[in-house]
């Protein structure tokens, strides 16, 4: 019993065997001591909360945030001891902040619930008690046999039992899982595949044993034991038998499968893991500032407490109670300290987090909405997966980019090849031998034919839908020119298409056969075996039986994995040709073949079957057999496929460099290809001295080479250096000489890493990220092999490319094209950074202004914790009076116009290394806050003077009038200070800025207009009106506000002229767009003088003002920094700014 409870509570993990046993149709064995394995039901749960646990769980999560917890503590202190302010003053804002956050999170969770319900309630057909029953998806249990029809999505992970085809195959697309658009063939176990009706399947008695759920989509190891008379049959199960939840059925009318992993055990669900939270540097600074202000708060409270007791005396007119007289000094001291803490607690801006969150959430829409980040050809917008990192986009120092599909189109074209040591060019569908001038007709040699056959046979390409079905019906080859190919690998597709143009057409394949059309003649090859591609072997093979009955192994793969295995053929010339092709930037693949005798084949086939059916270490054994088969090959030749650069890649890379960002290219490609792409993309340029750290075999050799490179760089620092590293050398360099390596990398203006494994990419990123300077890194890539790097870097960007959506799903932002990176960083990154960093600074500034007068007031009231402002104003200051202007500022501010930002990457340097939140700026803002607070307080103090009347009728005012005076001055100053910081006044800014001030006056008048029955005090009754009826107060407010803002304006003007920043110069370059203040309030465009008011208001609300500038940045009219001249002008501008500094 106790154990059961402990298990339920999760203390004892339930006993888990390494495998799970599934009884098909849940026909459990009948013996006594049989233990049921428990499986979850098929409900998908992506939501975090339920109705019952939402409040406690959400509250718990919110109070884990330090600021919220702090305010909770303050609130509790206020409840417990006698404090100057009522608990409402901190309770209400806290309640407000918590509620806003809870509503946001609740809404998001509600959406998830809705999506979950939709998925969980889809109807499915399940075989129960001998018949087909319709039920809901969530009711599927492990062991149920499920029927799926054409184009349906699999409701759970199923082992395929049978299909409506004779051979037990079905076609599946996994586009929604990994984005691969090709059709994949899945097989049923032949012995079961013949059971095609419900009643037949119902009689099936079988047990599936497979491993426990794991997230790897491409791994499934299991076996099925079919109970048949007289004896049981055991068959292996692999990924080709498993139909994954989320994939959908194609080209097959219906299939039956048995559920193996249900609900949250399904592979797709296991892949929904929450990503580790990335935190931006702004957030880190924010937390540091928070701690600084906590310290200031404690120091102020300690000073106040000490002074209170140093000056201790209780005036005789204010008798204490006996209880107070008798309580101990220490206790009163502590309670006084806490009271001061409560009094000054507003120095920590309560609404900071909620405002930052809103800003990020709302602000990220501008990325999604951006037309410049919209790719017309594919119709894809930019995608924001996390809004936490918006401002980090403005801080990038290192960009790590993948090559294929990121810099290049990943659109392959067959260009050249080398067959049997002779080079060919592929021109207009003909193979032209090098040296031969004209494409005269000639018959193909055997070697050429073999090479083309290898291309056409050894691949994973499928042909399109209609063809497939027609062929299976008619059993004949149809017009081959109309065939469409679908392939997971674009290289293969390019090769097969080229072979078709030349004359050998791949016309389709089935389980057992491959049809080729060789120069018009139909040939049927018997497919004996496929040795699938994997990343370690970097090659794939097929074993076929030719129509003549010969058994041949064809192998295709990277040259590094084929050449060492080749025994015969023109190996030496071919390897020279491989390098030559690679130099041209072509991707190379080597082809080889091997004739097998019947005996050899049978031996290998039996080994293969044994390996494939083994339950333990299956992968290793298969790899061993593969290696055994693929050896002593005959080299046929090498193909060269071109991958075109995406447009504007060189310009983008050049711009990134101008912005002071270091670009590293990390690719799995071979050295020569990588270098040539680097050169063509402008990553390396001709004048660069290229250093190589390649082919290092041993540690000492590597160390020596590193040392050499280091001295070389130190010796020669005029010229720019580029570094090329390959994977193996890199791992050597990282093992023992990390620091030296980093040192060298830092001094190189471009680094290229080739032959990188996915994990190595991530390792390089981590290395740079954790180096002492802690630079901000950005990784960009499109393929599954970039995922680790994307997740490792501070910012991960996925390219929506052809290699599936894994990179996109794991990224923080996704864009369609590499060139969009420029706008994303230079415009959005810059603006978001400027916005949010000013938001943070301003928030702390306004709270310093707010609470310091309260501190100063203590010196004039015997440290009795008398508040200067009324409770309502303490409460509403942060959440009403000053919240909207800064939020709107942080959404709409543009210190420099976007098109200037994009055209001048050097502007990016000005905000690098968290410049706006640097210690200097932070001190400036904080001191400014304190100075302003002193001016408010002592200005008001002097205005009061010897307490001469401020009224025309000689009447006197009291402490609340004084507090109001300080508060009004402070509020107006703080709001106008934001106005000074605003460079971009849209009508919204006008509205909230002036609206806030009007609201403040309106509220104050209303608040003092009557004696509110629900308020405890009547202190504020008519005080505001009384103050405003004094001419001196008005004049005083004006002069104090001017005195506060004057030095600030002066400073700004002075620096703008004496030492302008690049951004300020850029502001000058386009003297403002001719819109005046009044026009911007009315949402006018330039030149418009009269407005048709109603329409205008409507447009205003919808935000549909006429766009000002129509020309877009990437249009052809506006070449940005495409030509060298603009770069020159840029650098001269930099130079002049330097000159003026000197």
């Amino acid at each position, binding site marked *: 019993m106790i154990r059961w409870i402990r298990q339920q509570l999760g203390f004892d993990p339930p006993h888990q065997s390494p495998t799970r046993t599934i009884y098909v149709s849940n026909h459990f064995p009948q013996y006594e001591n049989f233990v049921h394995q428990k499986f979850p039901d098929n409900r998908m749960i992506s939501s975090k909360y339920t109705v019952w646990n939402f409040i406690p769980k959400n509250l718990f999560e919110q109070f884990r945030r330090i600021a919220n917890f702090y305010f909770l503590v303050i609130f509790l202190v206020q409840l417990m001891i006698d404090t*100057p302010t009522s608990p409402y003053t901190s309770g209400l804002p806290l309640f407000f902040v918590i509620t806003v956050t809870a509503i946001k999170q609740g809404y998001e969770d509600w959406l998830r619930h809705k999506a979950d319900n939709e998925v969980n309630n889809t109807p499915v057909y399940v075989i129960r008690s001998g018949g087909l029953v319709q039920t809901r998806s969530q009711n599927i249990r492990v062991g149920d046999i499920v029927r799926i029809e054409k184009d349906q999505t699999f409701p759970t992970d199923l082992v395929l039992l049978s299909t409506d085809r004779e051979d037990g195959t079905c076609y599946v697309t996994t586009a929604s899982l990994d984005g691969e658009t090709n059709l994949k063939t899945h097989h049923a176990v032949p012995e079961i595949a013949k059971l095609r009706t419900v009643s037949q399947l119902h009689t099936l008695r079988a047990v599936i044993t497979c491993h426990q759920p794991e997230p790897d989509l491409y791994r499934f190891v299991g076996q099925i034991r079919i109970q048949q008379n007289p004896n049981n049959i055991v068959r292996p199960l692999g990924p080709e038998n498993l139909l994954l939840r989320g994939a959908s059925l194609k080209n097959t009318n219906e299939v039956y499968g048995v559920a193996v992993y249900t609900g949250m055990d399904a592979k797709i669900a296991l892949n929904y893991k929450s990503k580790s939270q990335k935190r931006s540097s702004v957030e880190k600074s924010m937390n540091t500032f928070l701690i600084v202000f906590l310290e200031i708060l404690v120091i102020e409270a300690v000073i106040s407490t000490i002074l209170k007791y140093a000056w201790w005396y209780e*005036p005789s*007119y*204010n*008798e*204490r*109670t*006996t209880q107070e007289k008798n309580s101990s000094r220490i206790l009163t001291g502590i309670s006084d300290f806490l009271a001061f803490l409560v009094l000054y607690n507003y120095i920590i801006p309560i609404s900071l987090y909620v405002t930052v969150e809103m800003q990020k959430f709302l602000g990220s*829409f501008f990325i999604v909405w*951006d*037309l410049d980040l*919209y790719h*017309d050809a594919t*119709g894809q*917008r930019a995608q924001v997966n996390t809004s936490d990192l918006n401002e980090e986009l403005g801080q990038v120092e290192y960009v790590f980019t993948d090559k294929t599909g990121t810099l290049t189109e990943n659109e392959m074209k067959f260009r050249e090849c080398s067959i049997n040591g002779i080079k060919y060019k592929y021109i207009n569908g003909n193979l032209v031998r090098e040296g031969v001038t004209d494409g005269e007709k000639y018959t193909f040699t055997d070697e050429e034919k073999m090479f083309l056959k290898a291309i056409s046979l050894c691949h994973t390409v499928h042909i399109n839908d209609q063809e497939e079905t027609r062929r299976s019906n008619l059993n004949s080859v149809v017009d081959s020119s109309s065939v469409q190919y679908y392939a997971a690998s674009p290289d293969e597709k390019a090769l097969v298409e080229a072979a078709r143009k030349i004359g050998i057409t791949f016309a389709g394949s089935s389980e057992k056969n491959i049809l080729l059309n060789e120069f018009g003649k139909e040939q049927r090859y018997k497919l004996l075996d496929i040795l699938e591609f994997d990343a370690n072997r970097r090659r794939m093979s097929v074993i076929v039986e030719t129509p003549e009955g010969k058994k041949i192994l064809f192998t295709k793969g990277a040259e590094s994995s084929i050449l060492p295995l080749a025994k015969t053929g023109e190996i030496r010339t071919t390897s020279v040709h491989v390098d030559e092709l690679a130099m041209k930037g072509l991707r190379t693949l080597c082809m080889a073949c091997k004739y097998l005798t019947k005996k050899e084949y049978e031996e290998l086939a039996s080994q293969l079957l044994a390996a494939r059916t083994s339950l333990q270490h299956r992968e290793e054994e298969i790899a061993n057999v593969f290696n055994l088969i693929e050896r002593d090959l005959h080299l046929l030749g090498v193909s060269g496929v071109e991958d075109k650069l995406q447009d504007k890649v060189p310009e983008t890379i050049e711009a990134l460099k101008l912005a002071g960002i270091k670009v590293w290219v990390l690719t799995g490609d071979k050295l020569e290809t990588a270098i040539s792409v680097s050169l063509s993309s402008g990553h390396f340029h001709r004048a660069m001295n290229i250093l190589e750290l390649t082919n290092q075999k041993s540690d000492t050799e590597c160390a020596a080479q590193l040392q050499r490179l280091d001295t070389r760089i130190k010796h020669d620092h005029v010229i720019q250096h580029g570094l090329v590293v390959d994977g193996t050398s890199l791992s050597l360099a990282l093992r023992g000489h990390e620091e030296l390596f980093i040192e060298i990398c830092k001094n190189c203006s471009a680094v290229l890493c080739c032959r990188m494994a996915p994990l190595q990419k991530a390792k390089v990123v981590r290395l740079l990220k954790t180096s002492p300077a802690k630079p901000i890194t950005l990784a960009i890539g499109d393929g599954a092999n970039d995922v680790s790097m994307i997740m490792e870097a501070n910012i991960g960007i996925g390219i929506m490319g052809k290699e599936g959506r894994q990179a996109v799903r794991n990224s923080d932002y996704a864009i369609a094209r590499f060139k969009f990176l420029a706008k994303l960083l230079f415009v959005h990154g810059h603006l978001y950074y400027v916005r949010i960093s000013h938001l943070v600074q301003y928030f702390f500034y306004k709270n310093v202004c707010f609470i310091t007068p309260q501190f100063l007031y203590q010196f004039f*009231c015997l440290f*009795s914790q008398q508040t200067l402002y009324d409770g309502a104003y303490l409460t509403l200051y942060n959440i009403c009076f000053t919240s909207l202007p800064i939020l709107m500022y942080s959404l709409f501010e543009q210190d420099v116009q976007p098109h200037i930002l994009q055209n001048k990457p050097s502007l990016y340097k000005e905000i690098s290394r968290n410049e706006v939140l640097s210690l200097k700026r932070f001190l400036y803002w904080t001191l400014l806050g304190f100075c302003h607070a002193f001016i408010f307080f002592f200005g008001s103090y002097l205005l*009061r003077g*010897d*307490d*001469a*009347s*401020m*009224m*025309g009728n*000689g*009447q006197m005012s*009291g*402490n609340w009038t004084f507090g109001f005076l300080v508060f009004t001055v402070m509020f107006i100053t703080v709001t106008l200070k934001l106005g000074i910081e605003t460079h971009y*006044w*849209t009508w919204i800014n006008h509205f909230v800025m002036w609206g806030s001030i009007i609201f403040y006056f309106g509220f104050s008048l209303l608040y003092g207009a009557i*004696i509110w029955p629900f308020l405890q005090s*009547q202190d504020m*009754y*008519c005080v505001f009106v009384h103050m405003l009826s*004094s*001419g001196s107060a008005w*004049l005083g407010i004006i*002069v104090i506000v*001017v*005195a506060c803002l*004057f030095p600030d304006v002066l400073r700004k*003007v*002075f620096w*703008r*002229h*004496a030492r302008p920043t690049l951004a300020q110069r850029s502001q000058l370059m386009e003297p403002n*767009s001719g819109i005046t*203040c009044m*026009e*911007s309030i009315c949402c*006018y465009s330039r030149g418009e003088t009269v407005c048709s008011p109603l329409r205008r208001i409507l447009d205003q609300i*919808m*935000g*549909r*003002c*006429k*766009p000002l*500038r129509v020309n877009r940045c990437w249009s052809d009219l506006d070449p940005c920094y495409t030509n060298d001249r603009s770069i020159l002008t840029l650098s001269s501008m930099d130079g*002049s700014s330097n000159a003026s500094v000197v």
Partner: protein
Amino acid sequence: MSRQRDQAVLKNKPDNTAFTQQRLPAWQPFLSAGYVLPTFFLLGLVFIAIGLGLYFTSNNVIEIELEYTGRSPNSSCHHCTKNDTKDCKCNIEFKVDKTLPGPVFMYYELVNFYQNHRKYGVSRDDDQLNGDLKYLKEPSEYCFPFRQDGQNRPIAPCGAIANSMFNDSFVLYKVNNSEISKVPLNSKGISWWTDYNVKFNNPKLDNGTDLKQAFEGTVKPHNWPRPAYELDTNPENNGFINEDFIVWMRTAALPTFRKLYRRIDDGLQPGKYLVEISYNYPVLSFNGQKRVTFSTISWMGGRNPFLGIAYLVCGSVSIVTGIIMLIVYIKYQGQNIRKVE
């Protein structure tokens, strides 16, 4: 099929509006010298003009301040500081050189008196002062320890503020060659209109109009010589709506403060005057001072040179920096032109 795709593509295309593309028409001011310098000069001139006006207005206000604490043995009120004296009176003479046109305001001033002490400031019951009978008998807890007397009888008005009410009184005489005539002092309208008419009200019984009956069952504050309903004979100025009481109840912001005492509507003619002080209020225990002040009033209030000076300083700083900036600006412009050449 491709058309469908195109439509899907178009649907995904973001709206090309000024709002979504962050191109809302906007005023883009930047603080360059071209804008700011004229503003500086204009601001400076306006401020200096205002400042001069304020300064002279303030200087025209005449203020006569008389200290009567009686700390030093020479002062005429010294004898009243002894503990055992009751109903002590002392006189202070002063001379008016120039006519003080009416109305002249008469203030008393306390120094080092912390009316803004938190525990002191909250020690009142606004509901009681509003005439609420319930709170008259059951004063708020905030009044503690001036809530009830030893026999648990409620104090009206309760609290420390009321208890410590200033109770010196002044009579002003004009001295005309040893002939003394009383100067009429007006106590009407010395408190805020809203306080007198709305916030403060006497408790009213349904049947009777007698103030004394309404206060039945309460006791006077400890320090008061007589109960609230005997503060004045004029029913319009008695009980909680006694204007001296209302003035006192508006707590001052800082420890040195003035409270309006009376108005002299006819002003003061040149000559000798004499203030007769009933000295009741002890201030020496907390090191305080007491003063009585006569002041005329301009539209902006009493004598306070600060505002005028502040405007003058701001204005002149603005103009001076404007001139400096102009020089820097011209120099910088020149440099720029040279650089271009």
